[in-house]
């Protein structure tokens, strides 16, 4: 067993140096002001120590300029830290457009992963170096939190919806994965690892790791038929149910009049709780049954991937306009 005494975590993602930089700035501010206050206290308390029993202090001389100074200067530093921190956070929560999508399901007490090509892993995820990767995460039970210290990333993983975290590894190696949100008895053992590989090695690894289902979208296409979605959602069934081609990323108008963006969470809800997201125009024909309990999280991911793959409607000989008409 390795026994070390590290004082600083490894840094292995594009985000890590950014978080570290602002951390060091914060640490500098904290160290400066703590030291300043400590020195002032010691200096003043010794310099003005009581010299005779009935001595009292001088009159207080109120100093407006001091009060203003020690309000404004900290405020300036605080706002600066806010702005810098907000910038890093904004980037950390917005995956870049070319990020490859992986799926994560947390459950008491393990992590399940699905690669885009359909390979599945438990607790240990393999990814290529130098490639932005986004994880769409959900939980089967309680709240967990996906935390990879070496990447400086963390995001809660909730039941009933998808949350996203992304990273781009800058180093090959194996890095710790923790669950950071308390989730019950074995919370501290709900760990694993992320193995970052050279792209070539990753390809080889993918080839070796068998994928029972094939790429997610393909598996989803099969499910789409198996679960009878296709009976209603056929390209020629405009009257029965909405056509799903070109849907992803569009805005739909619901029966309630609300406009919502079609993302993974919307698709998830449409499948599991169709009544909550009835599309405008289908009020009378809202016959879609709920699929709660009939689909595992992994299958949901496959269906959603399939519907997303219908995004380039042109290749299916249709445009979103046509399907909407």
């Amino acid at each position, binding site marked *: 067993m390795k026994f070390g005494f590290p004082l600083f975590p490894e840094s292995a993602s594009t985000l890590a140096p950014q*978080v570290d930089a602002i951390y060091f700035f914060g640490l500098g501010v904290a160290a400066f002001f703590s030291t300043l206050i400590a020195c002032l206290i010691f200096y003043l308390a010794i310099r003005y120590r009581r010299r005779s029993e009935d001595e*009292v202090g001088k009159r207080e001389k*109120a100093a407006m300029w001091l009060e203003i100074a*020690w*309000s404004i200067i900290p405020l300036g530093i605080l706002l600066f830290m806010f702005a*810098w921190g907000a910038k890093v956070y*904004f980037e950390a929560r917005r995956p870049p457009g070319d990020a490859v999508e992986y799926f994560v399901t947390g459950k008491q007490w393990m992590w399940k992963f699905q690669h885009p090509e359909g390979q599945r892993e438990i607790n240990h995820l393999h990814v290529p170096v130098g490639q932005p990767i986004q994880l769409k995460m959900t939980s089967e039970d309680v709240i967990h939190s996906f935390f990879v210290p070496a990447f400086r990333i963390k995001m809660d993983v909730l039941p009933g919806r998808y949350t996203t975290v992304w990273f781009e590894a800058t180093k090959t190696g194996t890095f710790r994965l923790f669950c950071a949100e308390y989730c019950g008895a074995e919370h501290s053992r709900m760990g694993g690892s992320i193995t970052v590989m050279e792209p070539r090695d990753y390809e080889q690894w993918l080839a070796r790791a068998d994928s029972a289902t094939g790429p997610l979208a393909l598996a989803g296409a099969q499910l789409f038929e198996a679960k009878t979605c296709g009976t209603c959602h056929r390209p020629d069934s405009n009257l029965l149910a909405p056509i799903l081609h070109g849907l992803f990323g569009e805005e739909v108008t619901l029966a309630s009049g609300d406009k919502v963006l079609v993302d993974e969470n919307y698709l998830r809800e449409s499948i599991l709780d169709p009544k909550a997201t009835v599309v405008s125009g289908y009020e009378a024909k809202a016959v879609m049954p709920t699929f709660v309990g009939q689909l595992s999280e992994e299958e949901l991911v496959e269906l959603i991937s399939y519907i997303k793959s219908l995004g380039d409607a042109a290749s299916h000989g249709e445009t979103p306009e046509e399907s909407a008409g």
Partner: protein
Amino acid sequence: MSERKNYLNADYGVWSWLLTKDHKRIALLYLLSITVFFALGGLMAVGIRLELATPQGDLVQPDTYNRLFTMHGVMMIFFFLIPSIPAVLGNFLIPIMIGAKDLAFPRLNLASWYIFNIGGAFTLWAMLAGGVDTGWTFYTPFSTSFSNTHVIATGVGVFIAGFASILTGLNFLVTIHTMRAPGLTWFRLPLFVWAHYATSIIQILGTPVVAIAILLLAAERLFHIGIFDPAVGGDPVLFQHLFWFYSHPAVYIMILPSMGVISEIITAFSRKRIFGYKFIAFASVAIAVLGFLVWGHHMFLSSQSVYAGMIFSVLSMLVAVPSAVKVFNWTATLYEGSVSWETPMIYALGFIGLFTIGGLTGVMLSTLGIDIHVHDTYFVVAHFHYIMVGGAIMGYLGGLHFWWPKITGRMYPVFWSKISAIVIFIGFNLTFFPQFMLGYLGMPRRYHAYPDDFQVLNVMSSAGATILGVGYLIPLVYFIWSMRYGKKAGANPWGAFGLEWDVASPPLPHNFDQTPVVEREAYDYAAQHEERDVA
């Protein structure tokens, strides 16, 4: 002068205590209750630190460990820190400081103590019957649909104790508004009273929200009404909003009274009027108000929107300003003062240092880019212990040492009290400083077992906790000892300013023979001194 009856020897017997309406006796009743809860919470901490001395998780079962840290949090927060200074020192001192004979509603005051203990009894029962393992934060849906421990009994205990807190706050507000002695205008009030005024507002406005959250939690747990668990149509994040809407301001319920104590001690042991009186007074109110607008900083990674995160971040930064203003004003008070290093002053100066570190690490946590990495790690654990133990408890102990001669009429041994203050300071830092490093290294909180390379820092922390524990035991011994054997203290052993130092030690049952008339601003040592010289 012949011995007059004071509040301690005016009556004897158990019932004279259990049915007392005297705010001073009720304060002592509270002191007894919260000391018991503190000891229990402390025992849990011993279990936690022993387990974490080795990485394997080999001392207790994971389930036991989860109960330990949950019960440690519940005991310390709801049954020790929240009542500590207000219910003991506030109860004892506020009427005397404002020249009143008692609080506005003495019976209600006694009722609060009973309510508090009933809440405590529920929670204790839950603990003895097997405990609870949700963390003191009770996050859903774990607490509503997954935990099979005594969530409801604990929740009911916290719910009941909340009413004690509301009633105490209400009592203080009415008292401070209506019962000030002639001449005691708002800006002549001791800052201790201002701090309690601000605290009371939070207690009254915030506590009902956590009570509602607990009720909803119980409703979902018992009747499976879908509120928080998505499996039955609820929203788990809603619970976090409700919970933190109270529990963030609750941090200020714990720290504001402590800040009030520090203002009293710093002035008394510098014999100088506080620097920037109005700034400190308004800073308390500003903290109380702004404190209600920052709860979302516990939820930056909860799926809350990016923009909500930014708003909560910038508001959290703003709360840091009044806190900084206080620290600077306290420090400036020493300038041209007459500083004596008595025990309470050692606590107060220790408070300023530790609170500064706690506050600045809080700023780091509010910085979104840093929080991504340190949220839910030991960095957070270290931060809030600097505020709550380094801040709130240092203030509480400083206050106890300051007013002990007033409360009991006796002095504690000075030498031992200074030793213990220093032991506590060292033990505290050794316990919690390494936790900042553990946090940045990535050790998540609430971990029963951890990777080997975190062990050295954890051992340091456990060693520090041992020292800290000894530091807390010493005052327990000498305080009890002093009640009987301590040197008699006069009315004003420190040469301090304030109405409480004009009355006898221990005070008369009704505090004052005649209602005092206040002619001076608070802490006006210089003027008082000149007058005495003339006389």
